[in-house]
């Protein structure tokens, strides 16, 4: 009687142990390079007839500092990068361009600011001919310094609205800009 019941026990233990030893030879897990991350934001600022200046925010920075001159027209281009692997920096801006319908770059300034932001004819437009804000025209007047926000919004509800809350959608990027006009 005993013989009979020990046999299946034995089989099951052997079976379990087989699994243990088999599975233990697993390799180290593959490293995941996260392609969707945005870890760097760059503003390329070009005064009419002048040369381009770049201002960059990297993950961990508090603000993106931008220095401009008064009474000047600028073309401002924004670029988003994944720089999590310094040897393989990816330009996420390409994807945003390709999916123009789903994205919007929005600058939100304090009311006290005299700087004017307008859409640029060089900007990418979506299928409804709405510019998505990757390229904008900034016009400075007096010397001033103020804070602002830069947003990249995914699936906005209303692209032509002029406040963050009425645009809706999900926030992919929200960075504080510290702007100084000399």
């Amino acid at each position, binding site marked *: 009687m005993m013989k009979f019941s020990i046999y299946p026990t034995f089989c099951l233990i052997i079976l379990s142990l087989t699994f243990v030893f088999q599975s233990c030879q697993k390799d180290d897990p593959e490293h995941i390079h*996260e392609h969707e991350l945005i870890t760097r934001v760059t503003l390329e600022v070009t005064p009419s007839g002048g040369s381009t200046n770049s201002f960059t925010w990297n993950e961990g920075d508090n603000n993106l500092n931008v220095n401009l001159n008064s009474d000047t027209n600028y073309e401002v281009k924004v670029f988003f990068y994944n720089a999590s692997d310094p040897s393989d920096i990816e330009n996420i801006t390409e994807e945003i361009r390709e999916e123009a319908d789903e994205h919007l770059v929005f600058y939100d300034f304090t009311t006290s600011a005299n700087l004017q932001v307008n859409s640029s004819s060089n900007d990418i437009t979506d299928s409804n001919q709405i510019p998505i804000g990757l390229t904008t025209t900034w016009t400075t007047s007096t010397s001033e310094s103020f804070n602002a926000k830069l947003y990249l919004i995914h699936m906005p509800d209303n692209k032509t609205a002029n406040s963050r809350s009425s645009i809706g959608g999900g926030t992919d990027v929200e960075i504080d800009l510290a702007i100084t006009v000399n």
Partner: protein
Amino acid sequence: MCLCYVGQAQDCNQELRGQIIDLHDNSPLEGAAVRIDFGDAVTYSDSKGLFVLESLCVTNFTITITHPNCKTHEKAVRLPGPELHTFYMEHHITALNEVVLEEQRNTGLAKATPEVQLDSEDLESYSGLTLADALDQAAGVSVLRTGNVIAKPVIHGMFGSRVAMVNNGMRVRDQEWGADHAPTIDLNDVAAIDVVKGASALRYGGDTPGGVLFFKQERYVPADTLHGKVISGINTNGRGGNLTAQVTKGFSKGTYFKTVGTLKHRGDVQAPDYVLSNTGWREMAFSLTAGRNTYTKGWEAKYSFFDTTIGILRGAHIGNVGDLYRALISPIPLRIAPFTYTISPPKQQAENHSIQLFYFKRFAEKTKLELRYNLQRNQREEFDIRRGENRGKASIDMQLTTHDFNAHLAWKPQSALSSTAGIQLQLQDNFSNPKTGVKRLIPDYFSYGIGSYGSVTYRPNNLFTADIGMRLDWNQMDARKYYYKRDWVARGYDLVYPNFIRRTLNTEILTRPKFDFLTLSFTTGIQANFSEALTLQFNLNHSERPPNPAELFSDGLHHSLATIEYGNLSLDSESSNKLLAGITYQNKRVTLNLTPHFARIKNFIQLQPSGLKQTVRGAFPVWSYIAINADFFGLDVDWKWTITPQINFHQQHSWIAAQQNANGTPLINIPPYTAVQNISYQPKRLKALEFKLSVRYTATQYNYPNNNFTKTFLEDGIYIDRLIDLSTPPEDYTLFDAEVKFKWLLKEGKYLQLHLSGSNLLDTTYRNYLNRLRFYADEMGRNVQLNLKYQF
């Protein structure tokens, strides 16, 4: 002639009330046909095994009871007899019965423990709904939800790894640690659910201070039978449908086969004022069982498959704290679309395969050996809203494989003593698919476990039971996880765990955290029946639980709560002492059950706010797992009152409080006070008809921790500070439900049943404190459900 009539009328006032009990386990037997040895009147026992034969003209006769699963039973009856006659149905092998009764005390489960049961009739009412909806009905059980479908049971304020689910004799291993992981069990493949409060089921682990849910299968008896049922239903809310069928074929030599299949499908559900967009749900389940049961030995093999796709409320998918704030202040979800059956991201998919093998053998008269093996493969995928090439790709894709083996021996050294002892082996392998392109939430790991346990039950007579049990476990967690170098240093791991580092990359390091946990659990209890009316139970248990993978390793952003959650490598085992009492008073018309409970937990692991993290989406609150000391105390009350034989009243109350004992801060997600009452009516003339009305009251939770924080926003050109209120619980609410059942009895115990039920009949708008998506939307509104059941 006239006199004769009167005489007969007087004689025909006799009535026989009876209850049919299954000798197997003393449970009531439903659907047994009762006939008298003259005439052809037949009546059937109800779900409580009760039947009534009325207007009987004779006082001395024989009744015949037949049931598809049992041997026909005949008994002589003399009236007037006792108020309630009890009839025991016998199975084919008479000897089996005695042993089966003994076994009830031998299951390794301390019997002196308060428990609640949901029977098949309770469960069938929820055939088309979720498992958690059914569990919500048991006193002392509440449900932690993420939306409408993703839901898990909470017993005495504890959930996840603190509650064990035992399906057909084995622990369910389906990544139960996650608050947004619903159990992968087909409700239609369960005959009854026993809720055992407290950690007294040492056979299944000593790590669940909350309690254990036993999902029990039907008992297979050696008889030539073919039986089963088909339930099909429709729901108005979500425009859903469900279909389930099961067939059991048994043979007199003990061989049996059973198969169960279930399909459920529904679209977006509706709150009273709007559509809850992207809340569709699909579920598919299938199982096949084959076995053989004889007196001396038996075996069973079961394969089961479960697959579900669940939409997550679209308005709950947010990018950052600003989006969260806009959702919080908006009275309605930020995204509402017309009704659809389509389930889009964000969504969850879970798939579970399980193979169970079972073998038992009896040696001498009173010794039994059981061997069980269970292979479970659980796969979960979560889909977020993604960009570019990653669109449509899962963000989380985890596959957990668990092998469990249990050898269990039960024997009776003396007539008053029964003992059990056993060992359990476990191997678990978690694989997080790197193809998601998103950092793993839970790393790849192996975990090994060896446990051994023993218990002794002393039962000198039917009035007194005492039991004691102990369990020792060794567990090893062997993980491989990538950390960002800056996080590794920021958390001080570089100083404590330098030996974990395997490889250094550019910005990350590969580590191999390896931990051993030795845990000891014990339980002891007594049960005393002071009279037929009064039973007292006391149960004390000590349980220890190693930290689960989420508590150790979590590393990521929670999309619906805009929080970053971090695990903690330095956590130690959680150790809990729980005292439970059960007081049951019973007379002919009233059953009252009180369950007060108290638990003191050392190293209680919970998430707590621990600062802010600056990211590309702005600052996020960080929540980390830490260990605290906590006290839980509460009371469950359950009472039933038979007002008249036709009218029954049932009321349940649950109250619980939990706090950190260092500073008295209440714990988060503790169920508020609830009171559920229902009244049912079965007309005397038409017993096939049953009405039920329920009123469910849920109070406001006033004991909650304040985890609110302030954030500065730029609104209309002005910087302004706003309070992010993620703490204040919603208002109390009352819901009304009603149902009506009608049963057509057919031949030989077969019947057809129509079940019409409505929940939240008044279409009340409310939010539920225990729903993690309560910040975004109201709960479901009215739902009317029609189920048709054919039992054969």
